[in-house]
């Protein structure tokens, strides 16, 4: 490849990757150093420790509460998504029933439709049902995961031969037995994949919890992060006026909070990239 092409690729590498590097260096510096030092300078480990301590103890232990909330909502939603999606994908792929094709088409449509389009109708519904402000207003919608059903459907229809199941049935296995003792043991990779995608979708969701929670003690991290911006001096100097007792945060603290919020997903992205790409290709490029 010619020099020009490579230069363009490096330019875009900078665009995609420099913000990440900057983010991870920011908490090692003080706010003053962030302005005065080179953007790529490393501050010090003791500053990092101070930043970490300041953000974790900010406003009681808000961050830890949000972290716990995020975990409850995401793991609850993920568990429900997996429990619903794996049998459903199996049923769609390997059993016959009236309405099967219709269900498959609806699943595809809801999967492609932006999930955010349902947020306000869900808010109105949860409000009516009296579930607004409860963990169910988040766990139930997170558990409804048509993409997972589609992934499981593709997996079961391409990896498990129908003859195998037919043989088991002839041998007298019950429908449940066929699923439990043949399909599930073969489905471990897809359980992991559906679980991961459901987890990421729930963990990173902002709009739904933004709408469904109204109290600091209910926020997940994504919504909590937005609250932190309001306390960050350089973005909201009005809150910084002298004499107030509000603990003021600085840019390195906010960067540290972002790192804590993205850590779980980022770790999986880094170490399971190959699996993820396979999953994306299953979901998006199946022909």
């Amino acid at each position, binding site marked *: 490849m010619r020099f020009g092409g490579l230069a363009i690729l490096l330019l875009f590498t900078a665009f995609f990757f420099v913000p990440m590097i900057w983010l991870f260096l920011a908490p090692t510096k003080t706010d003053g150093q962030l302005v005065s030092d080179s953007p790529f300078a490393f501050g010090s480990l003791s500053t990092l420790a101070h930043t970490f301590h300041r953000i974790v103890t900010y406003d009681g232990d808000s961050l830890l509460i949000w972290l716990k909330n995020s975990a409850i909502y995401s793991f609850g939603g993920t568990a429900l998504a997996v429990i619903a999606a794996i049998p459903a994908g199996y049923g769609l792929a390997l*059993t016959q029933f009236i309405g099967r094709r219709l269900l498959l088409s609806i699943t595809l449509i809801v999967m492609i439709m932006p999930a955010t389009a349902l947020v306000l109708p869900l808010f109105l519904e949860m409000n009516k049902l009296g579930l607004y402000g409860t963990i169910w207003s988040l766990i139930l919608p997170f558990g409804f995961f048509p993409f997972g059903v589609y992934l499981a459907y593709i997996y079961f229809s391409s990896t498990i031969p129908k003859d195998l199941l037919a043989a088991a049935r002839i*041998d007298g296995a019950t429908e449940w037995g066929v699923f439990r003792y043949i399909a599930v043991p073969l489905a471990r990779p897809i359980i992991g994949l559906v679980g991961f995608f459901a987890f990421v979708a729930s963990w990173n969701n902002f709009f739904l919890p933004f709408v469904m929670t109204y109290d600091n003690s209910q926020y997940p991290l994504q919504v909590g992060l*937005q609250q932190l911006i309001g306390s960050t001096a350089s973005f909201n100097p009005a809150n910084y006026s002298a004499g107030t007792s509000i603990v003021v945060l600085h840019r390195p603290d906010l960067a540290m909070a972002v790192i804590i919020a993205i850590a779980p997903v980022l770790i999986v992205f880094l170490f399971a990239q190959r699996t993820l790409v396979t999953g994306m290709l299953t979901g998006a490029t199946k022909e």
Partner: protein
Amino acid sequence: MSIPSAPAVTSGRKSAARGGRAAGTREQLAPGGSRSAGYFFVALYVLLLLLLGVAPVVYAVYLALSGSGGLTSSFTSAFSDFRFASAFEHILEFMVIWLVSQTFLVVALVLMLHNLSQRVGAAFRFLFYIPGALAGAASVIVWLFMLDPTASPFGFILHWLGYAQFDNTVAPGNLPPIFAIMAFWTGAGGWIVVMYGALNNIPHELLEAAQIDGSNAFQTAMQIKLPLIRKWIVYMLVLSFAGGTQLFVEPTVLGSAALGVGISKYWSPNQLAWFIASEYDNFNEAAALSLVLLVLGLMVAALLVWRGRLFEVE
């Protein structure tokens, strides 16, 4: 493929299946099992679909149609709201910038990457893909930093453009391109990976034949590779369009950085719908507005499923 536990399970029940009519019935049903079993397996999912996919939409339709001024009053008052047109103008401007630049850049980058060696290409794809791990408020905050001329590693560019302070950068007129940059940063890598995968499906012989016929790299890219990934480009465009109409996180999070004065709480249509619901308690009008957005998303999805032939339904 091994099926370790299967024989152990089936052996105990063999005799039962062989007795009498049961065996005949089973054989008829064998290819797909019994119908009731199918219903059983999809039951929980169907319940969730009805409760969280269908019911909210039905209820929103009911709310939208039961406005105090008659059947269509919620829709007419939503459409005539002075904020309605500007919210749609905002996302229209955002989407034109985003979709045009994303389409051009993703295709250009993926074609360039495909000319590199497998290993070097993989390294680039990995670096482009990583920002996809950040979504929601996290990626917006990262870009708040990047747009802050005093701390940003891209500060020299911002200064060169004449922005010395954060509030210069996030001036209202700059918001559509800013949101386009954010969306491109988190989303482009995933599309590059997907399209690279599609390019790898092109038979090697085809590319070799083109080379022998005297086609240079540029001609091969334009005349052979591009047509073969065309449907993925269309897919990306359509999905991005549907997602773009829903814009909410970016303006909401950016708006909470108060220095960015001039970012209203109803910058995008979804924000406007939420504003009407939460500030005025006008659920009828909020439902009407959210249905407009829902129909946009639904139409795009239905179009892809029935006309696009991108997905395997059988």
